[in-house]
C-alpha cells in the first residue's frame, strides 16, 4: 500500500477540545503537515490566542506561548526580533485578531515583521458563546445581535486581508476557505507560500481561513459548510490579495 495522506507527526495524539465538525482541527493539521514537510517543527514557536484555540498548544507539537487576548502579533514580534532564527507563527481567531488585536495586527504587518499569521474567521466569538464579531455578516443573528447584525447600529463586516493588502509592509496576504476538500488543498497552498515568505526572510504574511461554527450557528457541520459557500464566501471572497515579488 502506498500512503497518500497521513496525519503528520507535528499533530499531537491529544484529542482536540473543539466541537464536532469545527474546522479548527483542519487548520491545525495543515499547519502540522507543512511544518513537518518543510522541516520547521523544531524551529517553530506558535503564539496561541484567546478563543476556542486557546489550548492549541496541546494539539500541535512545537514550542508554544499563550498570548493575552489580541496580543499575539506583539508577542510574536518580541520572539522573532530577539530570535530571528526561530520560525514564528500566530494562530488567531476573528475576535482576537480583528477586534481586540487589530492594532497589534496592523502594526506588525506595517512593520513587515517576519512572522506568519494564521487567521481563522468563523464570524463570531465561539468560545464565549457566539457573540457578534467584527466579521459577523449583516443580518446574522448572534447572542449579542439577536435581531440580526444591522449596519446602522453595528457597522459592517471587517475584511482584514483587504485592509492589509493596501499597506506596504505585508509581503503575502491571502484568504482561503475550509469548507471543502478542494478549498482545503488551496488553503494549504496559500499557507505554504506564507511559510516560505518567512523562511526566505521576506516579511509579513497572513492567511485568513474562512471557517464555521456549527455549535453557535446552530447548524449541523454539513449545513455550516454549506452556509460558508452560500453566504460567507460572497462577502469574504477567497484568493490571493497581495503577492509581492519573490513569493514562491
Amino acid at each position, binding site marked *: 500500500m502506498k*500512503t497518500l495522506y497521513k496525519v503528520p507527526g507535528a499533530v499531537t495524539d491529544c484529542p482536540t477540545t473543539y466541537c464536532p465538525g469545527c474546522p479548527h482541527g483542519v487548520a491545525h*493539521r495543515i499547519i502540522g503537515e507543512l511544518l513537518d514537510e518543510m522541516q520547521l517543527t523544531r524551529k517553530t514557536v506558535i503564539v496561541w490566542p484567546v478563543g476556542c484555540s486557546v489550548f492549541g498548544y496541546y494539539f500541535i507539537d512545537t514550542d508554544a506561548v499563550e498570548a493575552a487576548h489580541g496580543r499575539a502579533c506583539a508577542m510574536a514580534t518580541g520572539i522573532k526580533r530577539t530570535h530571528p532564527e526561530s520560525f514564528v507563527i500566530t494562530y488567531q481567531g476573528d475576535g482576537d485578531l480583528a477586534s481586540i488585536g487589530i492594532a497589534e495586527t496592523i502594526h506588525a504587518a506595517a512593520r513587515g515583521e517576519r512572522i506568519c499569521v494564521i487567521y481563522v474567521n468563523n464570524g463570531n466569538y465561539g468560545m464565549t458563546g457566539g457573540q457578534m464579531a467584527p466579521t459577523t455578516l449583516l443580518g446574522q443573528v448572534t447572542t449579542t445581535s439577536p435581531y440580526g447584525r444591522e449596519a446602522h447600529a453595528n457597522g459592517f463586516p471587517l475584511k482584514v486581508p483587504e485592509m492589509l493588502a493596501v499597506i506596504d509592509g505585508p509581503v503575502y496576504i491571502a484568504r482561503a476557505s475550509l469548507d471543502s476538500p478542494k478549498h482545503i488543498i488551496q488553503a494549504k497552498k496559500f499557507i505554504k507560500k506564507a511559510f516560505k515568505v518567512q523562511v526566505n526572510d521576506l516579511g509579513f504574511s497572513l492567511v485568513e481561513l474562512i471557517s464555521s461554527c456549527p455549535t453557535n450557528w446552530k447548524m449541523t457541520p454539513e449545513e455550516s459548510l454549506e452556509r460558508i459557500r452560500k453566504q460567507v464566501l460572497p462577502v469574504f471572497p477567497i484568493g490571493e490579495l497581495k503577492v509581492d515579488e519573490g513569493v514562491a
Partner: protein
Amino acid sequence: METRVIVNEERCKSCNLCVEVCPKKVLRISDRLNPKGYRPVELFDNEACISCGFCYLICPDAAIVEVRRPVKAKA
C-alpha cells in the same frame, strides 16, 4: 485487500463531514460508541473506495489517520 482508510475511532467525533464529502459513499457512522461517547465513522466498502483522500482532508479531528492505495504489482 488491506484497508484504504485507517480510522482512529477514539478521535472521531461523529461529525459526519467525511461521510458527506465521500464521492463513493463508502463511509458511514457506525453503531459502536467510542470512549467519548461518539459513534465513530467506519469504511464499510473498501472495494469501492478510490483513496481520493477527501475524508482525510475534511476531517477536523485527525481521526482519518491515513489514506492509502494498493501498489500495482510490477510485472
